[in-house]
């Protein structure tokens, strides 16, 4: 058996093997005999929290992961629940894309829904818990308006009018049924979101069918770029499914590396993609060497990039990411608008999180100082 490297995300070897199931080149091994019920319960919980019930079920039904009959029933039950949730969300995609297109607002589906249909051999392998849609920044406010007209409501107001369409990652809208629509202007908040070459994302697209409706998604290199941003910056500790997404795209598509490098350079995102690919290859223990994995292994970040990456890591905060964003905004006037909105937000934005603008400012400065002292 191949030696298992340490997990950057703190995941168990069995969870990592499930995440890598069916992936060409992985050296991770699934258990050779049924787990004890205690072990199974722990792994089962991990597959649900990591949204990989599809990979778990596929490993079981292929015979690669031996289980008892009751364990099989539990795995299928949770997978059926995940699939039912995925279909309800796809219905929401169909309806939301419909109202956006009716309003002549271009839209690209992102993450789970698009990846399930375009990058996995069976969409049931990739489940998801919300929907993510990308709209152009200059039509962001219109998109929020037409979606709220369907009954959905913003989870949080924007700091100042016009902030979303200029600066924010996007906003989360909740439907009356409790479903979430993550409406994106860019991939992520912070410096890497601010530097993203947004116009490049709209140059072309891939399409897939949802219940007879043609839905647009990013093209494969742009999807890989987003998968990498999500895997490397989305959580303080890397989650397994986003890493699987990165490996899945690289190992199953003929990715145009010149296009990918162009996108990375235009977005100053080489360090993000390199980190995501390195983590994916390490966490899923992939032995195959691709051009992308060889490049990622030798890529070295400069000091400024390391500093930018740190604001997405453990111990960072919203304030630290916001402060780091200022340096990535290209013009002085835009920087001033951003700082004004962040430091003097409208009262509705403060909500229950801060007693006053002064309280918010004091807390934010404290968080930034704390991150700097940790470095």
């Amino acid at each position, binding site marked *: 058996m191949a030696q298992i490297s340490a997990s950057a995300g703190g995941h168990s070897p069995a969870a990592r093997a499930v995440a890598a199931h069916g992936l060409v080149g992985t050296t991770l091994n699934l258990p050779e005999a049924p787990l004890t019920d205690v072990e199974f319960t722990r792994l089962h919980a991990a597959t649900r929290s990591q949204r990989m019930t599809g990979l778990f079920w596929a490993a079981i039904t292929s015979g690669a992961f031996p289980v008892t009959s009751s364990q099989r029933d539990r795995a299928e039950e949770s997978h059926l629940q995940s699939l039912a949730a995925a279909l309800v969300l796809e219905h929401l995609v169909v309806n939301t894309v419909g109202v956006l297109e009716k309003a002549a607002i271009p839209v690209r589906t992102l993450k789970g829904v698009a990846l399930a249909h375009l990058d996995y051999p069976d969409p049931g392998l990739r489940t998801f818990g919300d929907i993510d849609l990308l709209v152009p920044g200059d039509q962001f406010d219109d998109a929020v308006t037409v979606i709220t007209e369907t009954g959905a409501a913003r989870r949080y107001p924007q700091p100042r009018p016009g902030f979303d369409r200029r600066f924010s990652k996007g906003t989360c809208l909740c439907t009356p049924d409790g479903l979430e629509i993550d409406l994106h202007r860019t991939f992520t908040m912070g410096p890497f979101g601010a530097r993203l070459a947004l116009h490049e994302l709209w140059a072309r697209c891939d399409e897939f069918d949802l*219940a007879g409706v043609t839905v647009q998604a990013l093209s494969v290199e742009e999807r890989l770029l987003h998968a990498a941003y999500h895997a490397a910056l989305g959580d303080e500790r890397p989650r397994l499914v986003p890493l699987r997404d990165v490996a899945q795209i690289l190992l199953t598509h003929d990715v145009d590396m010149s296009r990918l490098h162009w996108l990375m350079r235009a977005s100053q995102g080489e360090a993000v993609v390199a980190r995501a690919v390195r983590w994916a290859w390490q966490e899923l223990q992939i032995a195959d060497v691709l051009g992308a994995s060889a490049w990622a292994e030798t890529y070295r970040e400069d000091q400024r990039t390391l500093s930018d990456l740190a604001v997405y890591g453990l111990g960072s905060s919203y304030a630290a990411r916001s402060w780091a964003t200022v340096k990535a905004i290209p013009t002085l006037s835009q920087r001033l608008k951003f700082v004004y909105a962040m430091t003097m937000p409208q009262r509705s934005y403060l909500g229950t999180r801060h007693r006053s603008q002064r309280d918010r400012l004091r807390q934010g400065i404290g968080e930034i100082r704390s991150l700097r002292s940790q470095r």
Partner: protein
Amino acid sequence: MTDATGRPDGFARAAGVLWRDTGAHVVALPTAGSGDVIVLGGGSAQIWRLLRRPRSLAQLVDAFVDEAGAPPPQQHIAAAAADLVARGVVRNSQVV
């Protein structure tokens, strides 16, 4: 064979159905209906799989023989197919 509207004569998957197949069950959501998810198992799931192309009842029975060897009685298949029609995941152009 087609009906008067040019659609294949017999049973076919309804338009606008979102679905996944676990191999043991089929999970489906007809977008034109109530928005409820339904889970199909056993013969119902098998009928859904066989309807990857439209089939008459006789063709469905023949396909059961081909794939399952020992098919259930024709009236059971007809009842299961009619149930799928009632649940909005299958349409039957022979039924007006």
